[in-house]
């Protein structure tokens, strides 16, 4: 599939959008320069993410990145989530992302890492 079309599909109908039941961790992040906002919810048991969701508003790149990442995050050990690199997110998106747009792509990942480190 055309990566841009894939991004648009995730943007229109994101995976794991909303508030997951019984979440143990939560973090809200905002990019004031563009108004993008995301809140991530994680249910963590034995250091492993057993459920994950997010909600918020943002550009196609930020929403699609979070949507794509959500499938990856569920089932991961929290230590492994902290090791996810920006390159991994860019690879998921499948398009070149410049330094300015990288902030959009990473808003969800950064929020997820923050949620884990805040609570643990």
């Amino acid at each position, binding site marked *: 599939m055309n990566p841009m079309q894939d991004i648009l599909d995730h943007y229109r109908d994101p995976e794991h959008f909303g508030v997951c039941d019984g979440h143990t961790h939560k973090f809200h992040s905002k990019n004031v320069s563009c*108004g993008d906002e995301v809140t991530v919810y994680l249910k963590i048991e034995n250091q492993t993410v057993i459920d994950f969701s997010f909600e918020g508003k943002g*550009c196609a*790149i930020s929403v699609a990145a979070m949507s794509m990442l959500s499938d990856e995050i569920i089932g991961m050990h929290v230590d492994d989530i902290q090791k996810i690199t920006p390159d991994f997110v860019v690879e998921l998106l499948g398009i070149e992302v410049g330094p300015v747009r990288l902030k*959009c792509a990473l808003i969800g990942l950064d929020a997820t890492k923050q949620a884990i480190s805040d609570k643990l």
Partner: protein
Amino acid sequence: MLKELFPIFNHKPELVYLDTAATALKPTVVLKEIFDYYTLYSSNIARGFYPIADMATQKVIDARKKVAEFVSAKPNEIVFTSGATDGMNKVALGMLGKISKEKSDLGSLNVVVCENEHHSSLLPIVAQAQNFGVQVKIAKEYSEIESLIDSKTVLVYVTLASNVLNHKVDVARISEVAHKNSAFVLVDACQAVSHREVNFRELGCDFLVFSGHKLYGPTGVGVLVVKEFAYSKLDPIFFGGGAVEDVSFESNVKITLKTGFEAIETGTLPIAEIIGMAAAIDFVNGISMKTISQKEQELSAYLLSQLKSLDFVELLEPDLEHAHVISFNIKNVHSHDVAFMLGQKNICVRAGQHCAHLLHKKMGLHGSVRVSFGIYNSVEDCDRLLSELKEINSMFNER
């Protein structure tokens, strides 16, 4: 064809550059002047006793005269800075710092600004006022500025042309009201200086700033215009070589500074950039500001009329007939996505809040797409933009 004068189009002929409000492209003549300085007479100014230093010194003296003529000021009213933000900070900190030494009732004094402004302009003044305990009066609209000025106002800041909208601000009138109250007026001319004539005398303000890079010149250089008598109201905020008349450490430390622009221009100036900026002014004068204004007005009128015919476009200022900046959104599409998609097609626009968060917040917008013109733009550029906007709308809203 003006595009031929800009070498970037030789390398990227497909480029549609509609982001001059962020920075203007550079013509060959500007780049050549900078290259010549570094290759033919690279030296420091005002301190060398050899021919190439004389040449560099003379070039900067000439540049000062040229800049002064360009804005209808005197050469000794021209302070070279690293850019408009630098100039803003020099006035905000210099003036309030000076006042803090002279007056004890700082809490009763105030500065007046408008919340529509660019952060570069707004924040230096607001932050320094807070640092010195001076009140900040914030106008919701430019029309409110006058009514906020009173006998306790020390500084009024106003922009000549916004980087997001197309307000008309009567700076001369504001200056008149401010001066009646013994307040000083600082004007940001960044977005005006490359689109229309800026006359420091007619504006009646005391300080005016702009950047070279928005005027087809290089980055790293700007201008602070200071009315001659207003120098005495500015404390220098940087100290160093070039600005000092005499230093004595005998009984106690005594630093005697030079006066006027020399007290403010410390250290080695951005010589190449100043020379490049002067070349940019020659370039603009060669085409004539009248021609530039007329061409940009025609282009903006064309683009606005086309944008108004597109039902998926939401213009921030729908009543305009022409404009120096055109800000809009595509319904249901984030401004970043619009700019990104346009970027994929080599069309350069700005998106986001354009360093004007308060303004966007007031309008209830996450951001906007901004188109701004330069002398290299054409109707063809507008048509390519319009065609891609239709494609983006179709991609996001119709498929």
